[in-house]
């Protein structure tokens, strides 16, 4: 259980689901251990959030455990989107712990947002990767089948095909050096989904991830984005954490999750 996620499912305002999918990781595997690592390294965090003057355990967060993953990503995404959709139907915010970035497609399907905001080193705009359209390298492209618009913050690498796709009107790319100055401008009635691929961070801060990419974001830059977007976000995930470090990536992921919940809850008061 994620520390402090003690609410009953029926009372929950936030529902955490672990999604340990780890089948298309193209370099260092281990994302299947992400959900457990994030929960484990969140144990050291204080329950009290001084900035928002709230106790995390008072914010009606429920941890529904993991949805065991299997080898058919499309089928898994479909099943997971149904589970997350139950939370949406109960007026709760679904929070997914990855797992490879592919699981984001399930959260987006469940929430059906207008705008998809993503912290990521990669564009993930390939139509397929090595013939696999459900690869983690294609998730933003898959998400655009549901969302009208994607904003990728911190992206610093991609193929020519991806940069070409990123030039279209429905994609905005914000380079790492510009993220600190980025302000969200959502329409008042827009539904937003926020995804954090932990590799958006510089590998020095989060080495435990499948495809490290230097020249990345600082934890504080990522935190500020999460705080800025959280009030408008109807769904959240943090993905691509693996077990190949001493807990740095998982610790950052867990803390960003807590920041999201505290900010989202405070904005509702």
């Amino acid at each position, binding site marked *: 259980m994620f520390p402090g996620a003690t609410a009953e499912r029926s009372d929950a305002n936030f529902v955490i689901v672990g999604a340990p999918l780890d089948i298309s990781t193209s370099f260092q595997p281990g994302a299947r251990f992400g959900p457990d690592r994030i929960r484990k390294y969140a144990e050291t965090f204080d329950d009290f959030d001084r900035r928002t003057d709230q106790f995390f355990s008072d914010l009606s967060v429920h941890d529904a455990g993991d949805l065991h993953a*299997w*080898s058919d990503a499309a089928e898994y995404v479909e099943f997971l989107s149904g589970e997350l*959709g139950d939370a949406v*139907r109960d007026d709760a915010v679904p929070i997914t712990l990855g797992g490879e970035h592919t699981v984001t497609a399930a959260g987006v399907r469940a929430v059906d947002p207008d705008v998809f905001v993503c912290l990521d080193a990669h564009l993930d705009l390939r139509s397929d990767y090595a013939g696999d359209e459900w690869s983690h390298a294609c998730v933003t492209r898959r998400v655009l089948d549901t969302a009208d618009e994607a904003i990728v913050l911190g992206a610093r690498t991609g193929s020519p095909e991806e940069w070409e796709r990123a030039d279209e009107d429905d994609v905005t790319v914000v380079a790492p050096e510009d993220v600190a100055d980025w302000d969200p401008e959502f329409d008042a009635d827009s539904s937003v989904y926020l995804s954090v691929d932990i590799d958006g961070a510089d590998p020095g801060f989060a080495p435990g991830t499948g495809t490290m990419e230097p020249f990345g974001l600082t934890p504080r830059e990522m935190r500020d984005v999460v705080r800025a977007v959280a009030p408008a976000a109807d769904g959240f995930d943090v993905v691509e954490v693996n077990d190949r470090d001493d807990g740095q990536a998982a610790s950052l992921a867990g803390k960003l999750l807590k920041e999201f919940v505290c900010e989202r809850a405070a904005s509702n008061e």
Partner: protein
Amino acid sequence: MAKQQKQVRELQEGSYVMMDSAPCKINHYSTAKPGKHGSAKARVEGRGVFDGKKRSLSQPVDAKVWVPIIDRKQGQVVSVTGDDAQVMDLDTYETFTMRIPDGEDFSPESEIEYLEYEGNRKVV
């Protein structure tokens, strides 16, 4: 009570199941593969037959669920008053009043088909 028990694995899209004490028509059925130490789970999504509300359940495939036995019946419209119609069941000759669904055109003498379950009726 007109219902029977079945295993979740026996359900299929288009059939009925009780969810939250309401009879629902299944419009989506998917299964999650079991891990080494778990059993396969099924997810069933459906809509209430009489209230149109979306409901879902997620249970192991060998779990037991209730399936409502919904009667499909024939009736004849006797008279129409505003939004209500008086209908006679062509099997039992019982007459009852029912609300005319939006978009339906009822006129006396016309025959209709309807679903009935524990006093709830819905035109097919």
